[in-house]
């Protein structure tokens, strides 16, 4: 079973900021939060990863509060091309017994961006 819970779907309009919240009440102390994006007929693509506080890259920002029971993926000024499924995963590092290749995906959040 996935260790995370996220909304099944979200709708937005071009130019808006989109925030997708992920719940992980039982996240392990050493787990990282990782987000992947998947377009139809393609494999998932890594977006961002963090442990706590805030991480930002050229694609998105990830906010993780101090209690780490939830996290929020923020996509600034979305465009039609951001329409995709977004997966939130809790990843256990290999040096803490995790498996690099065995990711547990839930159903993800289907984001639809409209003009």
């Amino acid at each position, binding site marked *: 079973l*996935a260790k995370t819970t996220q909304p099944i779907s979200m709708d937005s309009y071009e130019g808006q900021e989109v925030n997708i919240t992920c719940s992980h009440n039982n996240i392990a102390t050493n787990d990282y939060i990782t987000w992947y994006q998947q377009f139809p*007929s*393609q*494999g*998932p*693509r*890594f977006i961002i*990863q963090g442990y706590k506080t805030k991480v930002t890259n050229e694609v998105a920002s990830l906010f993780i509060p101090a209690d780490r029971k939830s996290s929020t993926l923020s996509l600034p000024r979305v465009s039609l091309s951001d329409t995709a499924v977004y*997966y939130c995963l809790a*990843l256990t*590092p*290999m040096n803490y017994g*995790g*498996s*690099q*290749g*065995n*990711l*547990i*995906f*839930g*159903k*993800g959040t289907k984001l639809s961006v409209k003009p």
Partner: protein
Amino acid sequence: DAGVTQSPTHLIKTRGQQVTLRCSPKSGHDTVSWYQQALGQGPQFIFQYYEEEERQRGNFPDRFSGHQFPNYSSELNVNALLLGDSALYLCASSSVWGNEKLFFGSGTQLSVL
């Protein structure tokens, strides 16, 4: 620098047949993982290969088997195909020395009739 490549892109088989799917990892990667993704679901882990051996396996029957070659490429074999095996099969590569980020191919869409 080529990413993860999979072949074929699409495949149609009938029940009871056998199928072989192929994957070439991203340059510099030595670990290959296979996933099955049914329509509307997230990818499900099948198994992982490193140093030509199966290192981890998900909850899939023995009909699913694999192989990794010395050049790190990999095959996924499925015997005695069932209708329920229809899915997108994804290959992901990584480096055991890397930061644990997976790179996925575009997948092979398998239809079992």
